[in-house]
């Protein structure tokens, strides 16, 4: 069971049980991106505010498995305060890490590093990615709702 224990790390459980930055705000300056994964029933929305090239707020709402929920929560905490460049770089490296592709091991992924256990569970890669993909769309300036 050690692989599973490696997936359900304490930090992940903490974010799952006490999600940060949860709930959306009504503010046209936020970009919002929603992604659904109908095969599992995941449905996550990320809302991001960027001012002068800095992510000043990042919010999340949705439902899904613990991995997708926790990864959304961790995402928002990490991203607030980052420059767009830093944010994109961290997101790209995180997405490569969870999907077992090459990534910059020097880069500090902060709490997101605990999602490395996902690599052992190919079917959960999508769960760990969905919020981060949506986030990348928001900082590209896309909104889909």
């Amino acid at each position, binding site marked *: 069971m050690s692989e599973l224990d490696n997936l359900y790390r304490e930090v992940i459980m903490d974010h799952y049980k006490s999600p940060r930055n949860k709930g959306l705000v009504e503010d046209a300056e936020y970009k919002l991106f929603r992604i659904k994964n109908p095969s*599992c*029933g995941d449905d996550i929305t990320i809302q991001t505010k960027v001012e002068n090239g800095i992510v000043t707020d990042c919010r999340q709402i949705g439902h899904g498995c613990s991995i997708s929920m926790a990864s959304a929560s961790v995402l928002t905490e990490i991203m607030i305060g980052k420059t767009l460049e830093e944010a994109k770089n961290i997101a790209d490296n995180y997405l490569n890490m969870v999907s077992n592709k090459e990534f910059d091991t020097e880069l500090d992924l902060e709490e997101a590093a605990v999602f490395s256990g996902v690599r052992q*569970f190919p079917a959960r890669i999508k769960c760990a990615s969905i919020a981060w993909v949506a986030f990348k769309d928001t900082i590209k300036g896309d909104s889909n709702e």
Partner: protein
Amino acid sequence: MMKNPYSKDFPQLNNGSVYLDTAATSLKPNSVIEAVNHYNRDLSSNIHRGMYEAAVETTELYESTRETVAKFLHAKTDEIIYTRGTTSSLNLVAYAYGLENLKAGDEIIVSELEHHSSFLPWQFVAKKTGAILKFVELNEEGRITVEAFKKVLSTKTKVVALTYVSNVMGYITPMKEIISLSHQYNAICVVDAAQAVQHIEIDVTALDCDFLAFSGHKMLGPTGIGILYGKQKLLNIMEPFEYGGDMNDDVNKDISEWKTGPQKFEAGTMPIASVIGLQKAIEYIENIGLSTISEYIDKLQRYALAQLKQIEGVKIYNPTSETGIITFNIETVPSHDAISFLAEKNIAIRAGQHCAKLICDWLGIYSCLRASIYIYNSYTDVDIFIEGIKEAVAYFKKLGF
């Protein structure tokens, strides 16, 4: 505990996993595997147009499969169309019958129990033609009843598209009464039998359905082959769906003529290897007998349900299911977390919406776990499954779920 007499025919069971995912796709017996192999290894050739030995044998196997399917369904050979699967069969009906025969204000009866493949083609037809979708109200168990059906049936009803067995709830729809009522209103009935054909005997003549669809891969056969049964008089008046080689009698620059019978709907090279494998799948089922199969599954399912009900924290959505499908959740645990645990123990069940979001909406859940039992499963499989669920409950509880 007694040994399962069929499991020896399914080589995949040797890999040590407990396979409880037949509703997604079934395992294949050796006879099916070998039939596909025989075609690929010894016979590779195209049908209908070759005179050499391999082409002749291929054509014979291809056409005798049609007879096997026809007998299995109590249909005429000319009423059996090969398709890519249930989804393609149902789209064929939606396009070649639905789009051509429905108009604004006509009504199509569907239900929240439908698989997306039985629902979306009609949502499309409704959008294109202006016809209206009517939902049979499900009873408190989530079943389609004759009474509820009567409430939506009217002279406006032109098509009734319902699932014979729900792939989430496992309930058997009272199809015979529904069809008979529908015909009183001149509505045609399209039956999604993807989860029925491997469980209950289907006699399309007695049932009197107009169309009936199923897939090979859920009934011990290969992927890539499905069947559409269609009443001859309807097939005769329909235009083709796909156009191409072999479905025509004459092709000219300005105008062409179509073949009659199922060939009108079989354009281009069909999935020959899978057709040939399907024959063996049906023979395998017939050799055991559908009543033996369903009795066995029923026993195993009751055995599983009795234990599952005892586990605290497990919610079962279909305790009266009659076809080997058990749908449930560990109450505080999202289904995808739960099956990761089971997958680690080599227990193959499925989590998600099962391509049937409307019934998840109806149940008020985002997703669920589904275990589905078939003839090759054993009491030991059930025991391992139950033990796995118990451990999962404890594991996630300890984690704080």
